[in-house]
């Protein structure tokens, strides 16, 4: 009985001694502040096929392919990636935003595809910028990060243009993006065109690789700017 009491006392004393050390640890060693996390949201999936693309495949399939390729490339470069789906699964827009917000990511890319237009359309949230708050409204959670989202869109724009990909910048009201607290940009990837002439379709492997590499370069640049 006495030995049990001694053991308890040692445990309690040890725990009390460890508390100050735990509290004095810099926040970077505890939480996600030191991590650089990227969230990739392959739009649509499952019951929601998205747009029907020129090659006949649904938008959900192409966004998943691009998400997997980009995830592999980022992981190879030492960047932690969280994806909202890894298969042809139905994921609610709120669940996608929840995944991104729980990851406390430094960049969130929402991948869409369309046959309309040329190159890549980059969209930031159309919410008016507001100071970040701990308890923001769900549907306007992005308002606190709009300024950083615009900066992220600028980094993506530069990298894509360096790769010779035409970019159109815009702002839109996308429910998933507006509920994210991370710097978020929605990409709508269109075929590569020279005027009306099709240069590379969405299913062109070379175009996909060039695109994914440009995005990875942009995120590396974004990481160096963030740290």
């Amino acid at each position, binding site marked *: 009985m006495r030995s049990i009491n001694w053991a308890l006392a040692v445990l309690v004393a040890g725990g009390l001694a460890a508390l100050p050390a735990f509290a004095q640890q810099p926040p970077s060693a505890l939480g996600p502040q030191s991590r650089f996390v990227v969230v990739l949201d392959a739009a*649509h999936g499952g019951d*929601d096929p*998205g*747009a*029907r693309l020129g090659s006949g495949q649904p*938008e959900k399939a192409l966004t998943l392919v691009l998400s997997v390729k980009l995830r592999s490339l980022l992981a190879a470069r030492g960047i932690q990636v969280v994806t909202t789906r890894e298969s042809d699964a139905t994921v609610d827009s709120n669940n996608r935003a929840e995944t991104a917000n729980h990851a406390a990511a430094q960049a969130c890319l929402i991948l*869409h595809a*369309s*046959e*309309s*237009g040329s190159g890549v*359309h980059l*969209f*930031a949230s*159309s*919410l*008016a*910028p*507001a*100071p970040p*708050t701990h308890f*923001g*409204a*769900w*549907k*306007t959670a992005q*308002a606190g990060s709009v*300024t950083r989202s*615009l900066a992220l*869109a600028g980094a993506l724009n530069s990298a894509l243009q360096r790769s010779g990909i035409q970019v*159109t*910048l*815009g*702002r*839109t*009201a*996308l*429910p998933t993006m*507006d509920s994210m607290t991370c710097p978020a940009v*929605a990409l*709508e990837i*269109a075929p590569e065109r020279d005027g009306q002439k099709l240069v590379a379709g969405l299913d062109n492997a070379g175009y996909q690789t060039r695109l994914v590499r440009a995005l990875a370069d942009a995120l590396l640049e974004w990481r160096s700017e963030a740290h």
Partner: protein
Amino acid sequence: MALGGSLTVIPRYQKYLFVLLLVGSLIMAIVLWNLRERAHQRLVAGEDSAPTQAPEVAPSEQATLVVANDSDSSLLTQVRSLPLPEDPGSRARAVLGKLLDLYAAPDATHPVPGGAASVAQVFLLPAPQLGVVPPSSSHPAAPDPHFRDPRFADPVAKTSATPPQPSGSQLAVVNLTGSFVSSHPSGIETETLTVLSICATLHANLPNVTQVRFLVDGEPHPTLAGHADLTRTYLASDAVSQ
């Protein structure tokens, strides 16, 4: 009189009575026929089939349409001459109908099927005050629909220097048909351009319209075709300034 059987003899007075009744019935039938004809003539004569009001043709006026162009993701202003009704709600519907007719044309710069019938109604209501912070205009983006939903307006934004809505501001509620939404091409770019061009066209023709909301078949609808949020209140002035 009876010769091996019985013979019934009709009395003479009954014969006269029968003939008299027959003649009376005929006379009454003729009189009734004449009365019916006279009554019909009176009815026809009392009905005024002449037009009481000349058919009203609204005079043609200049209407400004903000037309989307998919090739360069732009919104271009076009001025068209249209017969526009006096009633603001009908006027808004007529203008949007013309805009969607352009989109349904074979050579449309922003092809969307449906046409004028896609706008079921446009309701104009007094605009609620929103907690709006003027957006920064430094981003070189083309379309820029800033909005605030009064139900989810950010409390910080409300306390900042928010310009009040001008007096007489109106909220336009555009009720789209389900067939328009189901046939709209899917994509962020194309859906955003449709929403922006509707907002900008409304504001250009009815300057009091500062906010726009959307319904589909009279019900709130999450997105236009899977992307552009239709549950928000859009600020029309920001859309038209692009």
